[in-house]
């Protein structure tokens, strides 16, 4: 019998040892992980597990490689690394999201005083990777594709701007060969005339990658993503596709005819989704990633102390918020959430500062009254911050006659662990001020459940009371454009005349100064009314290894095209 117990001990020690020493080997740090902690011995020398590059040939590793296809770059304007390598935008864009002529196809551009006419002159010598010349035909063809209705794979701002060109409707009805508003002055210059003022015309045109007409001509826009072209696309960017194994990796070679310098290294992208790459940490530690960006703060925690890895925080227009459904659920009943005091109480009841402090260790900025992220020059300072103040919340609720037995349904659709933890925190903090909230995961047709329009007799189309979501805005205008008259975005509350009027006024001019002035007025009104409650503004983090560090001092928003001129990087 003694033997059986002996063997029990031996076997379990063997297996548990295997499982435990993984954790034990790194000395467990004190509670708050931000104190420096001494890293396990093996990792000190450079990550040895570098797949052997051919002798002498330098390779830059990154992620967002194609999982099933190369995504049409008109949808997420530059979110994938390969979009930024393969394609080039009509007008260049710098790291502050302003148009520039240092990059992009346009040698020069000029917007008329009234913002209705845009003249663009292309650089000469622009070539496609397959050797063909880039011509204005490609530009016109690309604009025409984005205009077509049902072009599912086109970003909304880009689509609205192109649809704003004169004669669009006639062209779509087949009356004209080409929209009247597009005029070819000579083989290098094009003039775009707009029927109505497009507020973010410059932003749209500087995030508008041009596609090769000769490869994609005649494709049905609704099925464009299914075209074989997207298995190995041809572009005019600084790198061209060398070899691709869909779902595993894709390698890019420098494009020798590129007008702005030729790189002396190749690039390898591991296949991963652009939204969240759960293998990022493992691959960085194994030396399989030299450049990548992440929105997950857990990745940052894991990588902060890895030898030779630098992490840069990049403020972006990304706001996580609670959408509030103000429509009544049953006939004859008014929805308490339509009373702004209840919304304000909710804002006061959530301890946004501690959440950002504890969960994100100060990397996320607590939400204020308005949607614009702190740090953006469009944000108006000094407005109501809605800092954590449970007593004020209780006061407001009492004033509004809030019935504490009522249970609010809080919908969320992110499935990462951080979201679930956040829901638990919010549920508990709201409970402390007497608001019962039941968070549940949205499944199946999520867009449908989030944005159903109210029924004819004014009842709520959506089931939830609060919905945790986010808006990654191209430009700050996008935050408030949804409140404009008849805009397709507002379904969660009745149209607000004062707010709607201000927004329309802002959108009616392309002059940035005028837009910012109206924007400030909107912010003031919004801070009091808070139809949607801003929870926190989340930056994006760029992770770079020793090989790449120092090439770029200031990063643009990596989710869009930016001025990183990767072809001129020098790898260590």
């Amino acid at each position, binding site marked *: 019998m003694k033997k059986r117990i002996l*063997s029990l001990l031996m*076997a379990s020690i063997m297996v548990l040892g295997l*499982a435990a020493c993984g954790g034990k080997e790194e000395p467990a740090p004190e509670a708050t992980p931000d104190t420096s902690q001494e890293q396990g011995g*093996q990792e000190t020398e450079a990550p040895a597990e570098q797949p052997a590059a051919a002798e002498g040939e330098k390779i830059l590793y990154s992620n967002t490689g194609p999982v099933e*296809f190369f995504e049409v770059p008109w949808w997420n304007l530059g979110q994938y690394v390969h979009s930024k390598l393969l394609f080039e935008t009509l007008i260049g864009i710098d790291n502050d999201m302003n148009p520039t002529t240092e990059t992009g196809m346009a040698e020069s551009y000029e917007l008329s005083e009234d913002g209705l006419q845009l003249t663009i002159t292309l650089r000469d010598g622009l070539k496609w990777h397959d050797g063909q010349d880039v011509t204005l035909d490609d530009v016109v063809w690309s604009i025409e594709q984005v205009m077509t209705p049902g072009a599912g794979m086109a970003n909304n701002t880009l689509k609205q701007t192109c649809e704003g060109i004169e004669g669009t409707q006639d062209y779509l009805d087949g009356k004209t060969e080409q929209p009247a508003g597009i005029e070819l002055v000579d083989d290098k210059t094009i003039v775009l005339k707009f029927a109505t003022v497009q507020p973010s015309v410059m932003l749209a045109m500087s995030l508008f990658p041009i596609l090769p007409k000769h490869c994609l001509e005649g494709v049905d826009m*609704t099925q464009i993503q299914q075209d074989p072209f997207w298995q190995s696309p041809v572009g005019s960017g600084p790198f061209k596709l060398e070899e691709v194994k*869909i779902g595993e990796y894709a390698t890019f070679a420098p494009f020798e005819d590129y007008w702005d310098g030729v790189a002396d290294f190749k690039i390898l992208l591991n296949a991963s989704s652009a939204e969240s790459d759960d293998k990022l940490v493992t691959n960085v530690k194994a030396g399989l990633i030299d450049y990548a960006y992440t929105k997950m703060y857990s990745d940052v925690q894991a990588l902060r102390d890895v030898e030779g890895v630098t992490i840069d925080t990049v403020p972006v227009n990304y706001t996580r918020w609670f959408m509030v459904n103000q429509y009544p659920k049953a006939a004859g009943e008014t929805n308490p959430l339509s009373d702004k005091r209840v919304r304000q109480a909710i804002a006061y009841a959530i301890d946004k500062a501690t959440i950002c402090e504890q969960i994100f260790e100060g990397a996320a900025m607590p939400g204020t009254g308005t949607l614009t992220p702190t740090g953006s020059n469009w944000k108006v300072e000094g407005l109501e911050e809605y800092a954590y103040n449970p007593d004020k919340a209780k006061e407001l609720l009492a004033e509004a006659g809030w019935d504490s037995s009522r249970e609010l349904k809080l919908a969320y659709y992110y499935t990462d662990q951080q979201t679930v933890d956040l829901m638990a925190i919010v549920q508990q903090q709201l409970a402390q001020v007497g608001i019962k909230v039941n968070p549940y995961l949205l499944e199946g*047709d999520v867009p449908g459940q989030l*944005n159903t329009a109210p029924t004819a007799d004014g009842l709520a189309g959506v089931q939830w009371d609060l919905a945790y*979501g986010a808006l990654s805005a191209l430009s700050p205008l996008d935050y408030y454009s949804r409140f404009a008259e008849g805009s397709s975005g507002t379904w969660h509350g009745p149209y607000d005349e004062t707010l709607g009027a201000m927004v329309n006024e802002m959108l009616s001019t392309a002059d940035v100064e005028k837009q910012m002035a109206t924007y400030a007025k909107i912010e003031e009104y919004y801070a009091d009314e808070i139809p949607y409650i801003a929870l926190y503004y989340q930056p994006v983090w760029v992770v770079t290894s020793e090989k790449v560090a120092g090439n770029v001092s200031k990063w643009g928003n990596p989710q869009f095209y930016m001025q990183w001129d990767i072809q001129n990087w020098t790898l260590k």
Partner: protein
Amino acid sequence: MAKYIGKRILMFIPMALLMSFLIFGGMELTPGDFVSNMISPDMAANMTPDELNVLREAYGLNDPFLIRYVKWLGQIFQGNWGYSLSSGVPVKDIILQRLPVTLELALTGLVISAILGSVLGIVSALKRGSLLDHTLTLAGVIGMSIPQFFFGMVAILLFALNWKIFPVGGRTTPDMVHWWEHLRYLVLPALVLGVTQTASVMRYSRASMMDSMHKDFVKAARSKGLPEWRVNLVHGFRVSMTPVVVLLALRLPMLVSSSVVIENVFQWPGIGVTFKEAVSAGNYPLVMMIALIIVIMVLIISLVLDILTRVLDPRVRLE
């Protein structure tokens, strides 16, 4: 024997059909569809429902369930396995590219668990009651009790990150010239998959080995003066092999299931991961074909193993 195989293969068809209908019905009942999954909710925040409908129309998601099923079935018989809704790549290409990768992992796991399991089973059966026997049995039970993905992640942590013996994941890198270079990537996932299966094969082969050791013909063999290894292996094990092979046939579907988890942990570009993505994305042509292929693959391999048991055991052969 040929008649028997013929009968079994004929039996596949109704089962495969029943299976495909079950899954097609299942996909149909899933709330939401491909289009709603394709567009991320953040993006859809400012899209009108009718824009979504235009897309649904384009993908043919609006025609009734039965018509889509018949249309899909019709395509299959013409050899056109349909196109993945998301990437437009023919489903046949995706499967032909990804299935061998999963088979490579699953079959290596099967071989490891079969060989390791039977050898350890024989050793612990012969040394019944010894310290080795108890340790092996316990290690077997412990091996069966640890969740696979947990085992896999610890394996990555130890062998790939801390001791740098094996790569962290993935299967091929561009600088691979010969086919065998990627085997280094196969070791860890196959080992993790194999070890968890080995435990049950070992327990089963130990029981069936002990059972055959009690039989008279083993005593008769020993009475012929044969050396101990010949008595145990040629006579003892040879007879106990048949039930072990039957067990392997039964455990095969389990192996495919666990390879879905292992592929997820080790970034192994197999059909399991693709299937999971396709199911949650509602990409029904891809889901249908992968499910069908997996079922047919499992049926074929269990038929092969079934025939193997007949070859192994003459008593059954005449039936």
